């Protein structure tokens, strides 16, 4: 039966609508503003006046200084700390979103126990009962206790964990998360030993460089210290006397750094080291640039065939020669190895081959050159040492062999971060007792017997030995900005309480609480820029200024290169045959969600990705030409299959990617981790295998091949920007003939 909507119906409906509007309008306005005065006011608080507290950001391992604006005891806004030597007042989107960790509605309030692992059936437990359970289990476990930490944990907590494990005779804590895995922290630091004779994270003085060759380093997006490199890049572009730095980005998929580069060269994945070697070869053969550079190039350039490299890398011989010439003749040339190099099977060699260009340039430790992060200013202060993948594999083996009686997981989410093939979740089944300190139930916490939620970083104490630190050594301070919003307990205090009952540990960890320990550690710092004397004053100024740093840059002796011969780079080997898996897989850390830890913050989920403007989704970036050949359009859900696993996600056709490459950002695909993260997109670690690189340092996440299968389904992409008139109907000029 069809019903005709008559004029009469229209009037009836209209009258009803108006009547309801009138009734709504007649209701007394209820605009109560509740004034909640303090029960006990802090001394420095004034009604209506904001108080700012200095602290340290914990959204990534870089350690930027932050200032948090509070009103009436509530944190309202996070900004960069202008005094802090690392970020000088700047802060990225991730840093700004930190408030949503503090106020996250999915945070646990109070300790919980899980009756059956994986059941998500959590029973509230009093803190006393929880601590008693923890104590009796850890005591019974003896020395078979393992602590698994994340890279963003406070230095004092890492120190306490270390002292605890040493006291009870347990192995040292393992520190591994996806962020450090994908940005290659451990591997880059270790590679420095071969180059400069010391372990340390590399730093690049981009501010004073004039030509920079970035081999896929997305230093403006994620990487080791993106906020600092943002400022460095600004200086790079506007140097004194109108000088402007020239950036060449070699990467298969255009990143935000590639988008601002002067030249973007879509290099074949895995060919970066080869190109670096070819550039050295050309400098040596054609005697480009100053004599000393040519001499060094002759020593360090391997026996590579430039024509073969051109074919293998899809960068023409002329282009290679141009790169070599501009590099060799520049005053301050710089070569930066990217994240993807650290995920190759020949990672250390690849990184060293790129760094060899810096050695050839002769600018190591000098203005506009490559040097190493300064070590901690005092041995009393520590920075969590990221474990190698070999350590992680060893630990999982121990778990499987029933050698681990208790596992404590702090600030890491290995069940999400590690490839399924590594068997972490399965190995957990062999551990009788698993305790998690996660404030929000994540993929690892659902396998825990006990969760003792820690306070979030805006509610807790700590310090951070900043690495990489640039001009000066920096120790960032961390202090509670607000009183805890949820019923959470500081893990440092939980550990100290636990240690009191274990005689060996009680001796080693004798502090009343973590603040007493922190004050003792901080008191051992040498004189800093904030001045003052006496522990109380030093401690107060440490909190007030957001950390410690020296008044002036220490005189640094440029490290001498220990590289004396050409690097032999084993050709990059991709997993999966070209016939079965025709596409290269290019994974990258999301600029917003980073390694997935940002997925529980709706501000980050809702912020459009800078390159694609996609929000809230995992997307598969494919070149429009490839998509056309496969008959795929934007929003078509495809199955990406690697030799290790598969993932389904919608396609976003993206012109700035090689036609033989598929790019997927990391960060989505959580099965837990709160309402904003859960059941959204896919976890790319399903595509990655358990194999470590040849040197055992890192996962082989950058040397995978995949195939694309259509599923026939289609979803709407959450795009901020329409493609009409931008890249719609794009004919790819960069890849003729494809």
């Amino acid at each position: 039966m069809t019903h005709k909507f008559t004029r009469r119906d229209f009037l009836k409906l209209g009258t009803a609508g108006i009547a309801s509007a009138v009734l709504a309008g007649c209701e007394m306005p209820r605009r109560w503003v509740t004034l909640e005065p303090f029960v006990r006011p802090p001394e420095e608080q004034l009604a209506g006046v904001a108080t700012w507290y200095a602290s340290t950001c914990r959204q990534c391992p870089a350690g930027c200084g932050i200032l948090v604006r509070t009103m009436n005891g509530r944190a309202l806004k996070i900004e960069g700390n202008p005094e802090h030597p690392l970020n000088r007042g700047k802060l990225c989107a991730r840093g700004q979103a930190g408030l949503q960790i503090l106020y996250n509605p999915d945070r646990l309030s109070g300790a919980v126990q899980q009756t059956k692992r994986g059941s998500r059936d959590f029973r509230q437990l009093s803190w006393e009962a929880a601590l008693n359970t923890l104590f009796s289990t850890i005591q019974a476990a003896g020395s078979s206790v393992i602590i698994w930490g994340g890279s963003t944990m406070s230095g004092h907590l890492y120190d306490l964990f270390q002292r605890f494990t040493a006291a009870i005779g347990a192995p040292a804590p393992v520190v591994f998360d996806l962020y450090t895995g994908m940005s290659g922290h451990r591997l880059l630091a270790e590679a420095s030993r071969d180059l400069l004779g010391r372990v340390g994270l590399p730093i690049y003085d981009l501010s004073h460089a004039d030509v920079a060759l970035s081999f896929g380093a997305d230093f403006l997006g994620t990487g080791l210290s993106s906020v600092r490199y943002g400022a460095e890049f600004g200086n790079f572009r506007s140097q004194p006397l109108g000088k402007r730095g020239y950036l060449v980005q070699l990467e298969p998929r255009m990143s935000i750094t590639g988008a601002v580069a002067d030249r973007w060269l879509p290099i074949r994945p895995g060919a970066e080291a080869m190109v670096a070697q070819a550039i050295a070869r050309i400098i040596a053969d054609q005697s480009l640039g100053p004599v000393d550079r040519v001499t060094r190039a002759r020593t360090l350039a391997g026996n590579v065939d430039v024509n073969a490299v051109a074919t293998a890398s899809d960068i023409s011989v002329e282009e290679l020669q141009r790169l070599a010439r501009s590099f060799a003749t520049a005053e301050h040339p710089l070569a930066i190895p990217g994240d993807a190099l650290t995920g190759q099977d020949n990672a250390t060699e690849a990184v060293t081959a790129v760094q060899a260009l810096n050695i050839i340039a002769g600018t190591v430790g000098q203005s506009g050159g490559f040097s190493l992060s300064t070590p901690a200013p005092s041995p009393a202060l520590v920075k969590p040492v990221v474990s190698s993948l070999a350590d992680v594999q060893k630990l999982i083996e121990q778990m499987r062999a029933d050698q681990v009686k208790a596992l404590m997981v702090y600030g890491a989410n290995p069940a999400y971060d590690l490839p399924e093939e590594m068997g972490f979740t399965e190995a957990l089944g062999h551990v009788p007792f698993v305790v998690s300190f996660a404030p929000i139930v994540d993929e690892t916490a659902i396998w825990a017997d006990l969760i003792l939620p820690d306070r979030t970083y805006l509610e807790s104490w700590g310090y951070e030995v900043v690495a990489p630190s640039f001009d000066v050594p920096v120790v960032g301070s961390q202090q509670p900005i607000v009183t805890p919003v949820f019923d959470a307990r500081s893990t440092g205090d939980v550990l100290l309480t636990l240690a009191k009952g274990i005689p060996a540990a009680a001796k080693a960890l004798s502090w009343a609480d973590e603040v007493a320990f922190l004050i003792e550690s901080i008191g051992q710092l040498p004189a800093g820029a904030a001045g003052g004397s006496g522990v109380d004053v030093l401690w107060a100024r440490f909190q007030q200024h957001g950390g410690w740093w020296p008044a002036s840059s220490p005189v640094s002796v440029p490290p001498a290169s220990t590289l004396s011969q050409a690097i032999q780079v084993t050709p990059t080997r991709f997993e999966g045959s070209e016939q079965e898996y025709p596409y290269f897989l290019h994974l990258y850390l999301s600029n917003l969600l980073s390694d997935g830890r940002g997925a529980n913050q709706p501000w980050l989920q809702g912020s459009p990705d800078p390159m694609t403007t996609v929000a809230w989704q995992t997307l598969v970036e494919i070149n429009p030409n490839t998509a056309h050949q496969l008959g795929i359009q934007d929003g078509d859900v495809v199955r990406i299959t690697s030799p290790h696993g598969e993932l389904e996600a919608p396609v976003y056709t993206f012109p700035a990617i090689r036609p033989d490459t598929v790019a997927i950002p990391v960060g989505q695909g959580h099965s837990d981790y709160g309402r904003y993260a859960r059941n959204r997109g896919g976890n790319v670690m399903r595509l990655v295998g358990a194999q470590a690189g040849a040197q055992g340092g890192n996962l082989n996440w950058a040397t995978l091949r995949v195939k694309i299968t259509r599923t026939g389904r289609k979803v709407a992409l959450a795009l901020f920007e329409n493609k009409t008139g931008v890249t719609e109907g794009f004919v790819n000029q960069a890849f003729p003939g494809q």
Partner: protein
Amino acid sequence: MRVTVNSSRRWLLIGGALLLVVTLGSTYLFLAAKTQAAPVAQAASGQPIAFNHQIMVQLGIQCLFCHTDARRSPAAGMPSVEKCMGCHRVIGTNVPTIQQVTDYWNRQQPIPWRRVNVVPRFVYYSHQVHVVAAGLNCERCHGDVGHMTVDRPVVRMNMGWCLGCHEQQPNAPQLRDCIVCHQ
């Protein structure tokens, strides 16, 4: 000649006029509810504790004794529960309203007072400037709170009222400037 309007036409006209009145009326009410502070509706019927200002003033306690921040901050602020208890641990402990305060203190909870005087969010108003620099008494804006039991709004704090006073000042040209209040 008589103009005749047939019956249905007339009803349509009356209906139309009514519709217009109702629409405009409801729009006004809706907007009024949204944009105005509707001060009278803020009356203190819903205060969690029937706080008696009169007694405090009769006992010689100055406004600024409790609303201390008025002379050093834009907001006058509400006294903390701790401040109330500073005296009422020993004074008036048998009075029911004071016992209510003690209950909040024992639970360590803030008292959820309801705001009595409201200016819209787009208005910048500083107590400090008015109390310290201009030397105004609290009564000038808040009425004779000393003779009220539970505080109630007596002034409709709108722009005309603000300007009424600003216009009388020797530096009226400056005080008339929009950005004085709409910063």
